[in-house]
């Protein structure tokens, strides 16, 4: 979720510290693994939100970008297929650009393989909310990946242009 091994290890340490500090608050109402996961996800979300420079709720984080005034992009076109142009490296890069709430749900569901009911418990949200966040995350990733494909095409054109200019 943080895309950086050293940072991930720091957060692992912080999660275990929180475990020791808060274990007395575990009441056995949910599975211990769920409780621990929720604690760990909260540690990561806190960190991601601090990095983004503002304290916001999951809803604010995920809904806010729809209100950012970003022009609505065309939802699809035969000239911009991701199949064949997407690999784990550029997907990882795109995931890192997701807002924290989207990122958490996407990583838990599509990367780690958790079900929506499990994510809802871990994140403290409804199942419907988890589904909605996942859908928005995938749509945002598609936009980001398309932009990366366009940027790559522009760079290739520039490189080809300067190469042919050099031959003259």
């Amino acid at each position, binding site marked *: 979720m943080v895309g950086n091994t050293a940072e991930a*290890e720091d957060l692992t*340490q912080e999660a275990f510290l929180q475990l020791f500090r808060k274990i007395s608050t575990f009441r056995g109402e949910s599975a211990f693994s769920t409780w621990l996961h929720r604690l760990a996800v909260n540690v990561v979300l806190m960190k991601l939100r601090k990095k983004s420079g503002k304290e916001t709720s999951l809803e604010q984080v995920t809904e806010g970008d729809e209100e950012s005034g970003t022009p609505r992009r065309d939802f699809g076109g*035969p000239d*911009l297929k991701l199949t064949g142009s997407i690999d784990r490296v550029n997907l990882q890069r795109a995931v890192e650009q997701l807002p924290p709430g989207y990122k958490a749900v996407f990583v838990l569901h599509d990367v780690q393989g958790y079900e929506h009911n499990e994510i809802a418990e871990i994140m403290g949200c409804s199942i419907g909310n988890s589904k909605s966040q996942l859908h928005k995350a995938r749509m945002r990733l598609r936009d980001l990946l398309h932009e990366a494909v366009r940027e790559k095409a522009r760079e290739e054109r520039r490189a080809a242009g300067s190469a042919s200019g050099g031959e003259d």
Partner: protein
Amino acid sequence: MSAFPCSEFLNRLDQWMEGERPSEARAHLRDCPRCRALVRDLETIQHTAQALAIDAEPSPRVWHSLRAQLVEEGLIRTGRRGWAHDLAGWLGETFALVPRPALAGAYLVALITIGIALSGPAGRHANEARWISGTESSTQPLSAQLDTAERDTISSLREVDPVVTASLHDNLAIVDNYIALCEKSVREEPENEVARDYLYDAYQQKADLLAQMSERGGDGR
């Protein structure tokens, strides 16, 4: 002609991706190249995401720093055995186990074997290299005897409340994972004394947990 317009399909796209595929949506997708491209992209993202899963364990640095921080905050005490006992106590409190009235057979076996294993580091100053090569041979029987103790203890839990038994099994799984992590660290750095100490601590924790489990079984609760 599509069964419904793109806007309607987009409204139901998340359901489509969740596997709900009504005939109207199928019909629309068959006729609409833009929506087909969109679905294909999302499926590509979904499929590629599985390759991002990393099954990595934190480096020993994490555990060393964590321990130092816990000591600094007074959450655990220094000292190898003290730390192990604190953790065992913590596990006991967490799962509300009764104070142990007597040591069960499994626990005795485990403690004896741990005593044998703990005698290993005492002689290491005399011959460090030999001690390192002996680490594996001293821990293998220990591990095997703990496994035997575990089987005996689990068989004694038949009368216990299934919910409590499930919690104890979960707890045992946590300790087993910790042991596996410690064993890996020792294999990677056999000369690292801290890693060896952690491994013995892990065995100690498992012995304590088995004792608690067997006492619970003996109480019939």
